[in-house]
């Protein structure tokens, strides 16, 4: 079953800048993956209980208690850029 993929849209969602050649290359690869997923979807799951998780456990909670945080200086030193205790990154407002 051929699946219609808007590959440019998918690339944009993943913030990938791809050339036209790359787009068609990945489109073909993605089509194979989706085709496989479509085949899995054909399996009769009438008698299978829906599951969101492979473990049978539920309610793994922690108490509302404060634990020590990391040392800021040490953390910021590992960032490409920082300023006055903040991480500094390129401007990130979406304007499309």
């Amino acid at each position, binding site marked *: 079953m051929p699946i219609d993929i808007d590959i440019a849209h998918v690339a944009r*969602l993943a913030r990938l800048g791809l050339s036209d050649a790359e787009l068609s290359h990945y489109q073909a690869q993605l089509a194979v993956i989706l085709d496989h997923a479509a085949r899995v979807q054909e399996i009769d799951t009438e008698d299978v209980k829906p599951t*969101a998780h492979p473990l049978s456990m539920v309610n*793994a909670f922690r108490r509302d208690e404060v634990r020590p*945080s990391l040392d800021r200086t040490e953390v910021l030193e590992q960032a490409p850029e920082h300023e006055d205790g903040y991480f500094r990154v*390129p401007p990130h407002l979406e*304007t499309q």
Partner: protein
Amino acid sequence: MSWEPVIGIEVHVELKTNSKMFCGCRADFGAAPNTNICPVCLALPGALPVPNEQAIEWIVRIGLALNCTIAPESIFHRKNYFYADLPKNYQISQYDQPVCTTGHLDVDLDGETTRVAINRVHQEEDTGKSIHVGGGGRIHSAEATLLDFNRAGVPLVEIVSEPDIHSPAQARAYAQQLRSLVESLGVSDAKLEEGSMRFDANVSIRPTGDEELGAKVEVKNMNSFRSLERALAYEIDRQTEVRESGRRIPQETRHWDEAAGITQSMRSKEGSSDYRYFAEPDLVPIVISEERREEIRATLPELPHERIARYVESGLDPHAASVLVSGEMGLGALFEEAVQNGADPKQVANWLTGETTAYLRKRETTIERTALTAAHLVQMTGMLTEGRLSSSAAKDVLAGVLEGEGSPEDVAAARDLIQMSDTGAIESAVDSVLASNPDALEKLRGGDMKPFGFLVGQVMRATGGKADPKVVNEILRDRAAR
């Protein structure tokens, strides 16, 4: 053609837990940037989230207070999108199995009650905070973004209404009443100015009578109840204009610009499928038994509508009762404390819902930022009852107290507002006024009461406005009867 606005509101409430939603970092507001961060909330490789039990109890509390169904089993989902304030590149949220579904809030506005249906209440985590720097601080021309992840991972509850709201005023009433509900539950500071309560609105218009909904526009960045009301009024007008000129409304997100008083297009809205929700594999389901649910229900405090009913029963009018409970924050607590300390409920309610509320609106401030205390209210209403303060002087006194000039006694003394209740002094003032107006006195004695008001006015003037008008009236009547 007439148009009907259709409004749905999404409210985000930050819970006031000690620690974050999925890690043990402090969740409080106002710490130095990036001091409450750890591998989990920074999304360092291999870190695993563990949900905060208290947050789960509190979202159930919110759901129960909103008459929601509490799901016996619910799960977390990942909402995927890229933004620098979201370290994991996904937000842990809930999708099709939230903790609470289908509830309602009854909203009072101008004596009418409308039921606003709640679609869902779900648990998620907050994002970090961005500051755009350079380019004169303008968001569109920033040179860089500074990030503080203290807020990343703070428990956030999203309350989504159905599009049951049909006017900006109703939207404001809904938001305010929701705020007082959340506040009464003790689960959030619900402070708009600190961002612990935030709202987005989905607005569309349709020809009155139509069933079908128009393209919806999401409006963001409304930081006060007033701006919510203003932004919606603007957006409804804008959409009406566009539709009447024959154009269509694109589905989009718009940013409310408070200073300019307009909404501006931000970005085309991502469709739900663009978020590629999938079940969070790091977290197991949340199961809430009937027994646990009822245990939490038993901890619900007196809710706002119950409190309003109690105030009305004790003699307040319904409007005053609802302003005390859902109006400016903190009025209710002051009222309760003043009344417990012997102040007359009706008098205190009047001063709080009238003058005090008007003052807070005008100054765009909150009750906590003023100097007014319950003890001040007890003292001032006492002075009124004793006749030492006229109600017009009390307005000045209250203004002085709110400004931090001291107690009502201090302000009244400093501004020379203590009412003259010394009968002897008032009597001599009345007598001297009558002596210089013999004709007026004659008329009174002849049964013509026309000059009465004039004479009262003269006495008030002679006493610098400090005579108790009641006493002046009594003495004048006495003189007329002689």
